[in-house]
């Protein structure tokens, strides 16, 4: 697929690189001379100019692009670029800079198909790493509601019980279960829980701690070697 990425800073270039690695074609748009040179040295096609100008986006091939990633740190540029991208029939993804705006843009910006908040994603990854690999936040589904994957440890109280015997707090639901070396699937009542098995749970923030204690046990003093890598 073909993509136009606005902004060749840390977020834009990394996104373009991942797309390129997966066999897609990405053209960057960058206002700054140094960043333009650096991205070109890295082998990227970069159009130098303001990503909120239609002419610049046309030069970057917006007419034939499948998607537009507006990934600069300037919200006005990002939003305008999405408007133009939408006009040309692109899927549009906008980078935002502050937590509270995620909800606002999801609700009101009909021209924006999805929003990304890199700082929050980074914080989630850092938190997962700090917790030592046995609990992994997958997504904030809504304000106060989080989707997490937990890996059953040696000290987990739930170890040895079956799915049917598992009782989660009221504000939590088990969505998927996977044996240690198997793929995740829908949970069935007869399956028993062993070390290394994974459970995907949707829970309200206040219930998360109870879920963690039940499925993992007390905080390990040392991070599980290897941790979570995917």
């Amino acid at each position, binding site marked *: 697929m073909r993509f136009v990425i606005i902004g060749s800073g840390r977020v834009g270039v990394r996104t373009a690189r991942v797309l390129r690695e997966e066999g897609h074609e990405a053209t960057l748009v960058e206002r700054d001379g140094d960043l333009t040179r650096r991205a070109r040295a890295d082998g990227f096609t970069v159009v130098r100019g303001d990503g909120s100008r239609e002419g610049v986006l046309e030069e970057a091939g917006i007419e034939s692009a499948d998607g537009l990633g507006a990934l600069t740190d300037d*919200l*006005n540029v990002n939003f305008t670029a999405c408007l133009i991208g939408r006009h040309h029939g692109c899927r549009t993804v906008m980078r935002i800079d502050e937590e*509270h705006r995620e909800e*606002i843009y999801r609700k009101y*910006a009909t021209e924006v198909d999805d929003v990304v908040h890199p700082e929050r994603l980074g914080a989630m990854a850092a938190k997962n790493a700090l917790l030592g690999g046995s609990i992994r936040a997958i997504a904030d589904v809504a304000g106060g509601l989080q989707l997490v994957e937990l890996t059953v440890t040696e000290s987990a109280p739930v170890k040895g019980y079956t799915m049917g015997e598992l009782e989660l707090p009221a504000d939590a639901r088990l969505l998927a279960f996977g044996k240690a070396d198997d793929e995740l699937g829908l949970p069935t009542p007869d399956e028993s829980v062993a070390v290394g098995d994974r459970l995907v749970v949707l829970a309200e923030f206040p219930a998360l701690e109870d879920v963690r204690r039940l499925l993992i046990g007390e905080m390990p003093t040392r991070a599980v070697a290897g941790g979570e890598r995917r």
Partner: protein
Amino acid sequence: MITAYVMVKGNSGDADRIRSAIEAVEGVESAHIVAGDVDFIAKVVVDTPAAVKDVTATRIQGLEGVADTRTYIAME
């Protein structure tokens, strides 16, 4: 009459409620949710410059979910 445009930065996602609260402030003629580095723009129409300050610094800034305001007074 004095007209002023107030750029309002929020700190909460419930934009509908904040917009309504801003619009309910006396002296505010209209308020919109906007895209960009501010979240709302309100148009204020009052009698005196002092009233502009009261509407923005005291009333709008005092609303829950409002982090910051910046006011531009129209010259013409």
